[in-house]
């Protein structure tokens, strides 16, 4: 496979994942804005922070009001992480790697782009927002379904999955990091209604409310949430889950190519660290410090993958 093709697949799936994650962030922020109007502005600010686009946002807007944030995250072409930019970048990468995709996958991503471009042609009215956010999630599921149902399990599939999980791990870690203060046992007042809403928001933004309840009943605690999203290998958006998937796909590549890679070492080290850690240990280190380290290692892993498989040269 061409290095460029591997890189195109990687970025195509990173951006698809990003568009879905951004939609979920908006969904969670919107929920708070509806239920706790007085907390709305802070919540929108934290959504922008989580999406990693604070500087870009403040260049265009003075205030974290809902309409500006939603428009910036959904439609603004100046924001490379907006849903519209992300789906366009994903689709351009899909065109670049067209020969590595089945017709079904290509058509799914091309159709998503057409549908979302049309849906996001004009600013989205509040009344239409839930429908549009649902549409974004469904389109994303469509591409994923086509990928799973039709693609050969070879290196092409591995690079697609690696992009997905690297992006997802980054996203979950950032959601936790931006909200880390509400999860700190020492500061949060257990049982206060503000915190309950905040915690629920975290679960909502990773589509984890239902799974969390299955595991813990209605006992929503900061420790429980942190453990769920950092260490629980059954939760498909947890750090542990993403790293184990990355590790799996990278070791398939190692086996297929019959070669050792620096990125395999990195991911194994990251996996070992997570499996040896308990949630108590995480809080001892400091949740924020732990997440900062993780984000750094995750980014370094991405850079090493680019280099090991010659995405650019």
């Amino acid at each position, binding site marked *: 496979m061409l*290095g460029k093709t591997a890189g195109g697949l990687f970025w195509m799936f990173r951006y698809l994942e990003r568009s879905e994650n951004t939609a979920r962030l908006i969904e969670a922020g919107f929920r708070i804005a509806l239920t706790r109007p007085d907390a709305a502005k802070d919540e929108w600010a934290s959504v922008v922070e989580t999406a990693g686009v604070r500087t870009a946002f403040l260049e265009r807007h003075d205030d974290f009001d809902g309409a500006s944030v939603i428009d910036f995250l959904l439609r603004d072409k100046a924001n490379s992480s907006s849903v519209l930019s992300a789906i366009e970048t994903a689709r351009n990468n899909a065109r670049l790697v067209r020969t590595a995709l089945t017709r079904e996958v290509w058509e799914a991503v091309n159709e998503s782009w057409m549908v979302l471009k049309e849906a996001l042609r004009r600013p989205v009215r509040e009344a239409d927002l839930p429908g549009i956010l649902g549409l974004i999630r469904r389109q994303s599921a469509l591409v994923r379904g086509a990928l799973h149902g039709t693609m050969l399990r070879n290196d092409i599939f591995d690079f697609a999955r690696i992009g997905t999980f690297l992006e997802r791990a980054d996203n979950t870690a950032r959601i936790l990091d931006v909200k880390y203060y509400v999860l700190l046992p020492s500061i949060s007042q257990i049982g206060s209604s503000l915190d309950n809403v905040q915690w629920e928001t975290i679960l909502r933004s990773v589509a984890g409310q239902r799974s969390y309840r299955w595991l813990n009943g209605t006992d929503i605690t900061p420790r429980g949430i942190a453990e769920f999203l950092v260490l629980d290998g059954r939760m498909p958006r947890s750090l542990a889950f993403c790293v184990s998937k990355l590790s799996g796909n990278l070791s398939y590549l190692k086996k297929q190519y019959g*070669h050792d890679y620096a990125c395999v070492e990195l991911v194994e080290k990251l996996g070992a660290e997570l499996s040896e850690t308990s949630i108590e240990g995480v809080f001892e280190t400091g949740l924020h410090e732990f997440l900062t380290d993780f984000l750094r290692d995750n980014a370094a892993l991405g850079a090493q993958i680019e280099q090991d498989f*010659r995405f650019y040269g």
Partner: protein
Amino acid sequence: MDDSARFFDELRKHDGTPRRPYEEFCGWFSNEDIKRLKTKSREAETFFRRTGITFNVYGQAEADERLIPFDIVPRIISEREWARLTKGIEQRVRAINAFLYDIYHRQEILRAGRIPQELISENDAFLPQMIGVAPPGNVYTHIVGVDLVRTGEDEFFVLEDNARTPSGVSYMLENRETMLQMFPELFSKIKVQEVSNYPTRLRRSLSACPPSKTEGAPVVAVLTPGIHNSAYFEHSFLADHMGAELVEGHDLRVIDGRIAMRTTRGYRPIDVLYRRVDDDYLDPLTFNPDSLLGVPGIMDVYRSGGITIANAPGTGIADDKAIYSYMPDIIEFYTGEKAILQNVPTWRCGDPDSLAYVLDNLDELVVKEVHGSGGYGMLVGPAASKRELAKFRAKLMAKPSNYIAQPTLALSTVPILAKEGLSPRHVDLRPFVLVSPDKIDITPGGLTRVALKKGSLVVNSSQGGGTKDTWVLGE
């Protein structure tokens, strides 16, 4: 008022009954509900969009992707008509390859005085770098698209030879695919020759010309300028269906006298490069130094037998519009036979007598730029306004040698499904020809382009043309 007397309609005879190749189709059509067909027609458009069969338009805001409109009425050619066409095409393509070999070696045709020396030596399409280079298998034009027009029952003319990087073959294939999906019942009634194996034939044909340094089965790759090129869909389509890598210049470099592509596991040599990049951009060390689309050093590798470039650099000298007018002589010179397919009479405006004639008859002629393509910079005299004629006259007089003129041909018509039902529109035809050392392989079909505007003679997609599926009937 009625055009039917002036133009040959391929579907109906003068008495209104269908011509033989269209009889079964017309039988089917007369039982169809126009509304249902219209719905099908819209479905086809959705299908094309979803599949991404679009072309990019240069110089337009937002890098718009457009569809080439598709018309569902097929263009049907009988087996007998096709047999005659293929004979003529084969003869012509053989002559083109012989001409290219000669022009880059001994130049016998110039010594014999059959074409003027300066037409070659002063032509930008002639590449001195190719002098004395024998391409693998002596094949210059691996892929040729011959543009044909029809003016009567037995009258076909070659309008243009496309010997550089002819495009449009993906439309031939996808048009058929669309028709098969929409009207399967038609294909069980009517025996239409298959076109879908074109990519396999292309791969076979390219693999039959490996360079001398090939080891094992030839590795084939398609070189594209990238996703912003107007024909990118076609490049990826062909690579996909041939099972070849789709590469860009920056994926390639010269290693140990070979062209190698950067893979996830290191650099791997390529044997045959089907390039969809123009000569000028192929090698910044040899041609345009600013080109980022090509591969620095590829010409040296080519000359030393490290790679096959398809089509060979320098083939443009064979499809130049000024050379075109000499094609009957060229065919006769190399094959010893009269040309089977006619050339359109052509006035070279660089010649003072011809120029005078062209200026006197501008409103009846079609005038084209020698190096133009895509229907740009072209004058269709009978359709032009007084102002347009005057403007073009000035351009023509400023640089006569830049133009050729031809009579306005009475292009045949095939109906399209218009608002009111079937309505005749002018068409041309581009069959695709594959050349390998042992064989000239013509896929039975081609790209039929149709001028969608009533009365228009310009079929180019950039000028509002559409396409049709082209059927060659089998026994």
